[in-house]
């Protein structure tokens, strides 16, 4: 069981401490997390490489088009499988980090076996979440359209839509500016709302990777109730984490720029196609490396958020010490 740690173990984590703890956990075992992130990201690359292969094949052979009927479904299945693999690997990072966080570390094999058994639940939860996000966006655009059309109709009347002459348009220039500002304001509200929304569902796959016996649907409901009242704090955590990753992104930019300079110094002229290919390749490799580097960090931060939410909302870790040996007969 958990060792009798100091009483600070059931202290709530402040915004900054969530971020610091995330970095500490990452730094304690970077090799393991990075390896998992590498394989997870490679899985996502696979369907793209396959698609490029298929396209190249048909572009050169220009025959056997009937095979497409089989190849396209196969590619879709491959794509779904790859996403599930990516999500599973991300969840594996979270599960391992949670073990460290609660002083009950799990072996890589055990953790992997567990998350693998839930592979399709991760895909299901991600699918449900994207449906939710999609419907929220659609509702927003409908509201936006209703507000704008309503504004025009109530101020000028319907004729501006039936007969949009330049004179009628220029006569209402103030209204257009007003509408533009209104759209900006609504967009701002929408993005704020989206941030709040994302914070409410922040650790869904973490929860799925840790708690036994929950389905993808239940997970989303549970996350919603766990994050109740904590959305803005979580949003701030995500913002601070993003800020700390900025230097790393900047470093990647510098490295890309440096590589570019090296290519040019090697005598490749900046107009040639070799140069374009090389610089695009370098940019892709850098982006790839960056996402591998940053993925564990986000997963671990989400795990710490989840851990903190559990202790806030459910008193996780609040337990009397098991004193079986002390209270029993000792003589």
């Amino acid at each position, binding site marked *: 069981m958990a060792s009798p740690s100091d009483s600070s173990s059931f*202290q709530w984590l402040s915004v*900054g*401490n969530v*971020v*610091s*703890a995330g970095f500490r956990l990452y730094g304690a075992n970077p090799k393991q997390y990075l390896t998992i992130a590498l394989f997870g990201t490679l899985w996502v690359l696979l369907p793209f490489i396959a698609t490029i292969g298929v396209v190249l094949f048909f572009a050169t052979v220009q025959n056997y088009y009937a095979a497409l009927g089989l190849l396209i479904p196969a590619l879709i299945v491959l794509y779904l499988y790859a996403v599930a693999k990516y999500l599973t690997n991300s969840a594996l990072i979270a599960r391992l980090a949670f073990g460290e966080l609660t002083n009950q570390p799990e072996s890589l094999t055990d953790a992997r076996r567990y998350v693998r058994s839930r592979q399709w639940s991760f895909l299901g939860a991600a699918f449900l979440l994207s449906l939710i996000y999609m419907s929220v966006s659609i509702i927003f655009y409908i509201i936006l359209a209703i507000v704008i059309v309503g504004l025009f109709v109530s101020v000028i009347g319907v004729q501006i839509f039936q007969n949009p002459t330049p004179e009628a348009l220029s006569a209402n220039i103030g209204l257009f500016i007003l509408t533009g500002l209104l759209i900006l304001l609504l967009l701002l509200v929408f993005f704020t709302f989206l941030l709040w929304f994302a914070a409410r569902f922040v650790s869904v796959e973490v929860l799925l990777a840790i708690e036994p016996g929950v389905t993808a649907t239940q997970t989303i409901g549970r996350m919603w109730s*766990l994050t109740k009242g904590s959305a803005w704090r979580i949003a701030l955590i995500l913002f601070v984490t993003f800020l700390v990753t900025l230097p790393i992104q900047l470093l990647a930019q510098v490295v890309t720029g440096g590589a570019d300079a090296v290519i040019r110094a090697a005598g490749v002229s900046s107009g040639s196609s070799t140069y374009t290919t090389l610089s695009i390749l370098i940019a892709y490799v850098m982006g790839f490396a960056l996402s591998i580097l940053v993925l564990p960090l986000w997963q671990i931060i989400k795990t710490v958020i989840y851990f903190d939410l559990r202790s806030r*909302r459910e008193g996780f870790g*609040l337990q009397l*010490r098991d004193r079986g040996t002390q209270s029993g007969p000792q003589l």
Partner: protein
Amino acid sequence: MRLFNRVSLSTPESVELEFTLAGIGNRTLALVIDYHILAAILIGFWILWSFFTLGLLSYFDKARVNYTAAPIWLLAIAFLVSFVLFTGYFAFFEVVWQGQTPGKRITKIRVIRDDGRPIGLSQAVLRSLLRPIDDFFFIGVFFILLGKQEKRLGDWAAGTLVIQEQRPDRKSTLAISDQARTLAIELPTLADLSQLLPDDFAVVQTYLSRRYTMEPQARNDLSLKLARQLRNLIGLEIIPPNTTADQFLEAVYVAYQQFFDSERPDDRR
């Protein structure tokens, strides 16, 4: 594992002190807050300064003075004042508030010297002057992330550390029901309270102070579990009827406090 970096240092009086370092998250958040306040101050200054400039120039205009050199001087003064505001903001607050700025105060962190003493003017100014270098290409972030003592260049130069403030939770009075109070009076005769350890008490206290933010279902489960465990620990036969788990925990909390308050005078003798 430990979630935060810790450092132990000995004071000039050779007292061993242990501190939890501030951590990258708190320091980033504090800086974000401070830079927003500073930006507001600077914008306010520039607005006031431009009003002042316009007024002065129109006065020169009326007085028919040749003022071709004045704008550049006014601009130079404005830049100088901005620099002083930027450096002075951090130095001023870190000296006056003993190592804290508004951002650090909100995030509950503090700058101290390497030997644990509060920082003085020279340390604060040195940290403040090196801040632009630490900010340049975020060099400071890498120093904080990779160094064991989480020191940015300014900290190395000034010989300072940034630590978390060790202020205990504000002792809020817990809501104790009347039923629990009456039970607490009987409890010492019914059960063996000496079986309780300070750790157990801390758990009960934490539960009681946090229960209102918990999910109702989880709270019910937890209070029942704690109540059952406690009952076994203190050897209570049955929890008196019509007592909820919460009330029982409150009663144990009150009874424990009274129990050990009454014992303490004996220790002093």
